[in-house]
């Protein structure tokens, strides 16, 4: 009898395990997972550019490698296709790949990595049901000169796989890159279904987080100089901040920098009184570099227009800020920003030199504005770019 009972329990457990189905609770959960996968890819690309740049010394680059492997990759043995040395191995482990960039492009040589996300897949489940994964298809271009003075310029399509582990039937929230391969089309994977539970669908969205909406509709990334190879997410205190922007459709652009407490309005410029706070008009397919006073980056009808320029400063050894790029096909609803005299970031000397703080609103007011104006429409897209500023 006992044996029979035991066997029944085992059979029921096996039945349950084999039919246990992992589902995503909502479209929002799926979008968040996709957004995190895109962020992991961007973080990877930004570190690659920092490793290839002379702006950082060897020690700083070493710390970027450790940070990247710890926070973005499954472990240091993740395999990555070799796209930096045409005569080398087919692939490397990620730690060797990153260290090769330091060694083969030693200062004064430099190399830049330009990644463009072409497509982000659905959320898939592994055959063993031990993890969920997303395939991010990227067009990437490498441009640099190696130690042998050989020009390395090539572009190729690669697939970056990002996983979420499943432990005891629960999906872990951390996104990790676990494989980077040559692009392979037509790979058949099992899609994770969305839950059909209507109660779940009716549940009000309670999170007040700023949503990460990955959109391949427009390109926007920060730069440390006005050249595209200065693309980075890692800044040093007193670095200048620039922004590259390009959209396939015309629209209106606003940019904010969030230090976790206050949101600073960076765009529209403070002197742009025509469409203040409703967004800078942008043309389709035009490449813009913002926050520079160089004449070629003056997009105002007035050729004597003076743009705002920005310098980043860190208050702690490593500040983490968010750059919010908001693009809309129509003029935006007014965002209530104003001069905040209470923010005391600048020293007396800096104020005397003419530095000032951009117009601001509190981070919580900004998030309320986002929830009221962006979460309910597909007409406005917000891109959240995390940047670090080191002292």
């Amino acid at each position, binding site marked *: 009898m006992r044996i029979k009972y035991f066997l029944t329990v085992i059979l029921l457990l096996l039945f349950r395990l084999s039919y246990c189905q992992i589902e995503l609770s909502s479209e929002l959960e799926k979008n968040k997972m996709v957004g995190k996968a895109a962020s992991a890819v961007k973080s990877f690309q930004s570190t690659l550019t920092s490793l290839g740049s002379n702006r950082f010394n060897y020690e700083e680059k070493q710390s970027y490698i450790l940070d990247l492997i710890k926070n973005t990759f499954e472990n240091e043995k993740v395999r990555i296709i070799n796209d930096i040395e045409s005569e080398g191995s087919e692939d490397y482990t990620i730690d060797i790949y990153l260290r090769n960039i330091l060694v083969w492009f030693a*200062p004064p040589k430099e190399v830049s990595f330009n990644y463009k996300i072409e497509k982000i897949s659905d959320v898939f489940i592994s*055959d063993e049901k031990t993890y969920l994964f997303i395939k991010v298809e990227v067009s990437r271009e490498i441009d640099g000169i190696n*130690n042998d003075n050989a020009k390395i310029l090539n572009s190729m399509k690669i697939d970056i796989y990002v996983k979420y582990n499943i432990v005891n039937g629960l999906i872990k929230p951390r996104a990790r890159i676990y494989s980077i391969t040559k692009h392979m089309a037509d790979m058949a*994977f099992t899609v994770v279904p969305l839950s059909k539970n209507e109660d779940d669908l009716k549940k009000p969205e309670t999170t007040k987080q700023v949503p990460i909406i990955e959109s391949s509709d427009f390109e926007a990334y920060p730069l440390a100089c006005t050249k595209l190879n200065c693309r980075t997410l890692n800044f040093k205190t007193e670095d200048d901040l620039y922004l590259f922007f390009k959209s396939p459709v015309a629209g209106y652009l606003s940019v904010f920098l969030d230090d976790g407490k206050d949101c600073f309005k960076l765009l529209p410029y403070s002197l742009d009184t025509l469409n203040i706070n409703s967004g800078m008009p942008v043309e389709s397919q035009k490449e813009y570099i913002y926050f520079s006073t160089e004449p070629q980056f003056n997009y105002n009808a007035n050729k004597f227009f003076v743009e705002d320029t920005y310098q980043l400063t860190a208050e702690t050894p490593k500040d983490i800020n968010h750059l919010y790029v908001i693009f809309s096909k129509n003029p935006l609803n007014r965002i209530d920003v104003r001069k905040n005299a209470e923010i005391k970031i600048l020293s007396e000397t800096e104020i005397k030199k003419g530095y000032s703080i951009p117009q601001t609103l509190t981070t919580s007011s900004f998030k309320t504005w986002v929830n009221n104006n962006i979460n309910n429409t597909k007409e406005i897209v917000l891109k959240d770019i995390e940047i670090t500023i080191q002292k």
Partner: protein
Amino acid sequence: MNNLSENLLLIMRKITIVKILTFFLVTSVSVRAQEKQAIEKLLNAEDLKIFASQAIQKTNELTSYIGTITNKDIKENEIKMEATDLAVDLFISEDKIVEVSNANRNEVKPFKIRDYLNKIRVLAFTKVEITFYDVQYISNFKKGPDGKYYGVITFFQKFTGFKEGKPVYTDVTQKNIEVVIDKVTTIFGSKKVERWNVMLGDITVKETK
């Protein structure tokens, strides 16, 4: 009756022993055949081509690292040390040796790989070029007790030492490189694809010209 049954028992025992012996023989022959088949499978022309090409890739990487280690324009010592670590990682272990010959002195000295790389870093030349080329011979691959396959590939190595931009010393050495073949896994989503990966072993001198 007793004698008969004893004889029958003896015959049956003998049959059993023969059966067991046959089983062992068959098993052992079968294992050896499988092993041979595996090695033969490894040794097909296509695989040999892949191993040779991978071995050349690895030696090209070694060449690149040596280029960085000996490049006097690179001032950061940390980068040279990093290149040394990466070059050592191409070898199956730190204990692997590189034999170094000298055309003038007609002698061959063995160095552990890291010692060899440290030695060439401080050579009196302003620039050193070491290139590996021309696969001359690939030996049979044999399975080691660790499950990896071992073979030997013969290359030519050209060493050129420069001073103030001019070559002041050159030698061409025929070298044997022990090659170790292991497996690595590439993951496409949830599909795992295993393939061979070549690592370097001892590099010994065959002849110096």
